[in-house]
């Protein structure tokens, strides 16, 4: 479904991505792992159109989408939950959710909003509150809920569990599997490597802008070399 | 020989450039705490009127007028700085612009004191006063081979030059110190700065008052160089012009407003030959400049580059001091 081919990305003159390639099969969950600053977020930004690659190409459902703007990509079915939430802080929770469905034209929006509110009851309770005044974790939930509402074919999640309480983290992973089962393909960036690999089919490992390993999640989980080098030892 | 080199026209333009540089620095100081104050034209007016009225009505020496005008402007800076502390960004900009307008309207309406829009003329002229004083000691510009007016403008120019250099030195040093770091921290993130133990009230008011002080000082100089002032000199246009100096030149480093003022004051003079179009061109240049170099003419990178070219290493805390310039 998604094919990334040798992309390079820069911030100013600094090259952050060096010929990254990856592939996401329709219906799967794929995880990108890597230490802080490896370039995970940059990869996500490039795929979602926030950043233009200097070289390489991106294909989505067989179409070349390299260099399209984020709104054009969204219309094709690619949605991103950005790192750091990016809530619309001056708009209410409800308006944030409505914006999630901005590009949709069907008439199930109201129903869908109700559904995500059921999933995240706090959002229903706070629907009139300004997004900016939610707690960190509440904002994270809002960001995910908002992306779900855009009904993407491919959902890009950049560290969705960051700042969430343990119970909710477990919830989030459950929700990701549910969304996936309902037919959405997911590309996931996570520090919570073990859990992420547990729910995903395939994984990539990034190191300072280069892809250094890949394989089925099972294989990565069981590869002690990788687990140690990139994910750290399981704490006692 | 000296006499041929000294053309009062160029000295006159240079004097206005220097006054404008001081004005540019005045807005830069307040900006370096992240506060955009457009009240500096008003402060300039307070300085100018105070000094002019004191020297006109009480025959005080110019130097006393300059001192009093500068201080009074600084005092107003504190008075305005405190209540406007709560305002941010555009709100602050517009309120301070409004303050300037109110000052102007007061100058216009307080006729018994200011003669209203007619303005104050016959203000003691700095250069001519110096000439007269020196004459009292038996000095004649001819001794230096100069005409009277050449001497007058040379004197003004030198005084302004010394004043400008002192002011720039003052603030460069301040920038590289604990005070400068506090300013920068407040500019970048006020809440975080406060949490790190910086008394933001104090430093913001300090910066505001310093800006007012410097603008007031420029105002006193303006009054005694032009010998005539009227409320229109301190209106919206002046406020905006000062802001343009800083942003056009680059508001991150002190050299920005300096070069901005230099360039933008000299440009209309250079463009004199196309008089009718020069303000259109002025507008166009501003637009193009912002599109091409929105950070202004001078920024940290340029300064570093210049440093690199001119000095041959051996500097201890290089980047940190360059940055805060």
């Amino acid at each position: 479904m998604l094919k990334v081919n040798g992309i390079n990305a820069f911030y100013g003159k600094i090259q952050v991505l060096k010929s990254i390639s990856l592939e996401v099969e329709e219906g799967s969950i794929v995880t990108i792992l890597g230490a802080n600053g490896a370039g995970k977020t940059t990869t996500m930004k490039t795929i979602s159109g926030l950043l233009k690659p200097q070289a390489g190409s991106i294909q989505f459902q067989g179409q070349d989408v390299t260099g399209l703007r984020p709104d054009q990509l969204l219309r094709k079915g690619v949605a991103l939950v950005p790192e750091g939430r990016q809530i619309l802080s001056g708009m209410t929770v409800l308006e944030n959710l409505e914006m999630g469905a901005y590009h949709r034209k069907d008439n199930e929006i109201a129903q869908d909003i109700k559904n995500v509110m059921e999933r995240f009851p706090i959002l229903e309770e706070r629907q009139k509150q300004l997004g900016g005044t939610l707690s960190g974790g509440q904002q994270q939930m809002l960001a995910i809920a908002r992306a779900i509402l855009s009904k993407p074919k491919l959902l890009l999640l950049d560290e969705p569990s960051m700042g969430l309480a343990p119970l909710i983290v477990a919830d989030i992973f459950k929700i990701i599997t549910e969304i996936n089962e309902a037919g959405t393909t997911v590309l996931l960036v996570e520090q919570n490597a073990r859990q992420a690999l547990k729910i995903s089919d395939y994984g990539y490992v990034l190191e300072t802008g280069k892809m250094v390993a890949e394989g089925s999640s099972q294989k990565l989980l069981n590869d002690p070399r990788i687990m140690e080098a990139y994910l750290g030892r399981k704490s006692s | 020989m000296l006499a041929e080199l000294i053309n009062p026209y160029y000295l006159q333009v240079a004097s206005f450039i220097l006054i404008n540089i001081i004005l540019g620095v005045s807005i830069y100081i307040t900006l370096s705490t992240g506060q955009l104050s457009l009240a500096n034209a008003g402060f300039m007016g307070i300085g100018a009127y105070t000094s002019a009225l004191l020297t006109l009505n009480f025959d005080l020496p110019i130097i006393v007028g300059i001192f009093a005008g500068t201080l009074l402007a600084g005092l107003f800076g504190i008075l305005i700085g405190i209540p406007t502390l709560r305002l941010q960004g555009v709100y602050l900009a517009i309120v301070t612009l409004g303050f300037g307008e109110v000052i102007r309207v007061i100058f216009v309406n307080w006729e018994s004191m200011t003669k209203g829009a007619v303005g104050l003329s016959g203000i003691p002229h700095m250069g001519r006063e110096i000439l007269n004083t020196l004459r009292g000691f038996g000095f004649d510009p001819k001794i230096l081979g100069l005409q009277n007016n050449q001497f007058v403008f040379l004197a003004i120019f030198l005084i302004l030059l010394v004043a400008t250099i002192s002011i720039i030195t003052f603030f460069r040093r301040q920038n590289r110190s604990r005070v400068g770091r506090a300013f920068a921290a407040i500019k970048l993130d006020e809440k975080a700065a406060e949490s790190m133990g910086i008394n933001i009230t104090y430093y913001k008011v300090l910066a505001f008052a310093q800006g007012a002080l410097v603008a007031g000082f420029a105002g006193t100089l303006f009054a005694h160089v032009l010998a005539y002032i009227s409320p229109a000199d301190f209106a919206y246009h002046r406020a905006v012009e000062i802001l343009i100096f800083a942003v056009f030149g680059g508001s991150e480093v002190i050299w920005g407003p300096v070069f901005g003022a230099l360039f933008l004051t000299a440009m209309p003079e250079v463009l004199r030959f196309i008089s009718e179009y020069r303000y259109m061109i002025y507008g166009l240049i501003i637009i193009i400049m912002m599109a091409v170099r929105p950070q202004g003419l001078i920024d940290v990178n340029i300064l570093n580059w210049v440093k690199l070219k001119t000095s041959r290493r051996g500097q201890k805390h290089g980047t940190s001091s360059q940055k805060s310039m």
Partner: protein
Amino acid sequence: MVLQVKKACKNFGGLSALSDVSFSINQGEIFGLIGPNGAGKTTMFNLITSMFTPTSGEIIFNEDNINGLKPHLITKKGICRTFQNIRLFPQMTAEENVMVGEHCRSKSGVISSVFRTKSQRKEEDRIHSKANELLEFVGLGGYAEVVSDSLAYGQQRRLEIARALASSPQLLLLDEPAAGMNETETSELFHLIKKIQEQGITVLLIEHDMPLVMRLCDRIAVLNFGKKIAEGTPAEIQNNPDVIEAYLGSEEEDLYA
């Protein structure tokens, strides 16, 4: 007793973010503050550092009531914090960030700075060397000249800690320092906080990373919906049914063993 929070309440309009929360922290301990999202943890930090004024209640630091004191005075008294959503001074270098942290422990003003008095130069030298020591301490030795904006996330978190330490705090408040870190980085963080404790600094920690919290903290308080539902040692907390129900969950228990 370094810090005592007595019946702290904070309302936002009709919403009660904290109600009647009390706890106290002993000299030299690492105290954990945990609870679900929106429980009021960050709000508690904001009350302690006077970013918000409490609706009611008292906060006592070293016997002094610090309610309503200006934030910078609180830092001066010896409390400093980091932020949940990193708030470094982005265009400053790492070193400069830390130097700003030393503000309240130094004193040269405009005049001495401009005239470069002897004491001012001595103070600057001292600030410099202390800043570099601190960068070394948090493991950012080589990054003094790097603009903080272009540091990686984990490094930024550590830089925030260095900056807070620069104010020589007696009590350090850390808001989710491990967020976004992988396990290797988290374990480095663990050692760093331990080292801080060894220097005699008391730590109040907000964190969702349970393994870290449980290993690090001497005592823990749990907030839920703005109320304190438990307080005790890690072992007590882990087995407290209310906490399990509200926060830890039981399904995935094996993960946090």
